[in-house]
């Protein structure tokens, strides 16, 4: 595999995860155009369509006709995510000390720290 191909493969993986994330945070079924808008990037419509088909094959998303010939709407498959959550909770609840060794993106905060962070966030808004 050339470096360029490896780069393209990685990029496709990143797009798949971004589309999944967009579908989950939308909270309602989206058309491919809706996904395109949610991602806010210069992704081609066809690329979004291709990624959605791949996710459908993996049974990570479901779809139904949008009606009136507008193609399909897509939403994330609930069962896979519920199962993942069940496994995750089981692993972490079984032994509470597991959380302490987890490399979490963000940890819980004290009230002082929360205030500081809110201030820091506000500071940067234009």
């Amino acid at each position, binding site marked *: 595999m050339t470096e360029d191909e490896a780069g393209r493969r990685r990029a496709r993986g990143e797009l798949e995860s*971004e589309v999944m994330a967009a579908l989950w*945070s939308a909270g309602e079924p989206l058309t491919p155009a809706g996904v395109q808008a949610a991602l806010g990037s210069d992704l081609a419509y066809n690329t979004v369509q291709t990624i959605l088909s791949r996710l459908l094959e993996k049974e990570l998303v479901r779809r139904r006709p949008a009606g009136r010939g507008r193609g399909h709407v897509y939403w994330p498959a609930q069962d896979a*995510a519920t*199962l*993942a959550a069940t496994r995750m909770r089981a692993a972490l609840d079984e032994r509470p000390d*597991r959380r302490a060794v987890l490399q979490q*993106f963000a*940890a*819980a*905060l004290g009230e002082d720290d929360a205030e500081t962070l809110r201030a820091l966030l506000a500071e940067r808004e234009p």
Partner: protein
Amino acid sequence: MTLTVYLPLLLPALVAVAARLAADRARPRAAVPALVAAAVLTAVATIWSLLLLILTLFDDLPDMAALDSRSGLHLPKPVPDAVAVVAVVLLAVVLFRLERDVHLRRGTARRLRHAGPSAGGVVVADWAEPLAVAVPGRPGEILLTTGMLRALDVDERRAVVAHERAHLAHRHHLAVLLAGAAAAVNPLLRPARDAVAYLVERWADEEAATGVGDRRLVARAVARAALATAGHPASAPAPALGVHGSVIVRRVRALQAPPPAAMRWQSPLLAGVAVAALVLEATATADFVAVLRAWLIP
């Protein structure tokens, strides 16, 4: 072998000093390997010193005790038996804690692996608690909860995923595992362990910032994710560097400041500690062998 065998037990205090100083000043990419190497080396020195102390009990073996009665033999008693017995107990405790720590870290990763089908290496779990975790493996996976996804906007989500991918790409779990194991062996290394845990987060933050091309975006993602986590009552604290939560504030501040410069004198300090550990252990071992030879070869 009087001082030389005891001093290595205290060397980790210097590693801890270097760790504290490196945490916010050094470039994480350089500081993490240096700290991990120094921590592991001084932890091994700790075990070796305990072993030497234990081995001085050899003259109490029945066969050896007979040699003691030879007339005219005046050998120094290098280590009191009481100290050697304490070393036996300490070594047992150390090995127990080491096994438990490594088992906990590896077990946690194993249980989180393959939680579900992944899209581009990301597994989404439908759970209100905001969590984003890198699960090492071949290949590694990123676990994201819907609670985390919904707390962030599209750019912030990209930053979080870039951060977690950096953890996996640079095998940060190994650095954290080794530093944790070293601290389990010698508690003086706990500050070094916490500094490594903090610095791999900083490393992943910096890499994410390079990836998305925006340090402020990563700072915002860290802050927003932490606030979402704080708003969730079930979320467990993950304290590090002794101060609860403030690690997040330090990460956000570091991202708002210019990128850190290279290490200056932390490297020589750590290298000095490594050399001192090797010299002291070599001297202690040589002294031990000398006593042993004098004892066995009249």
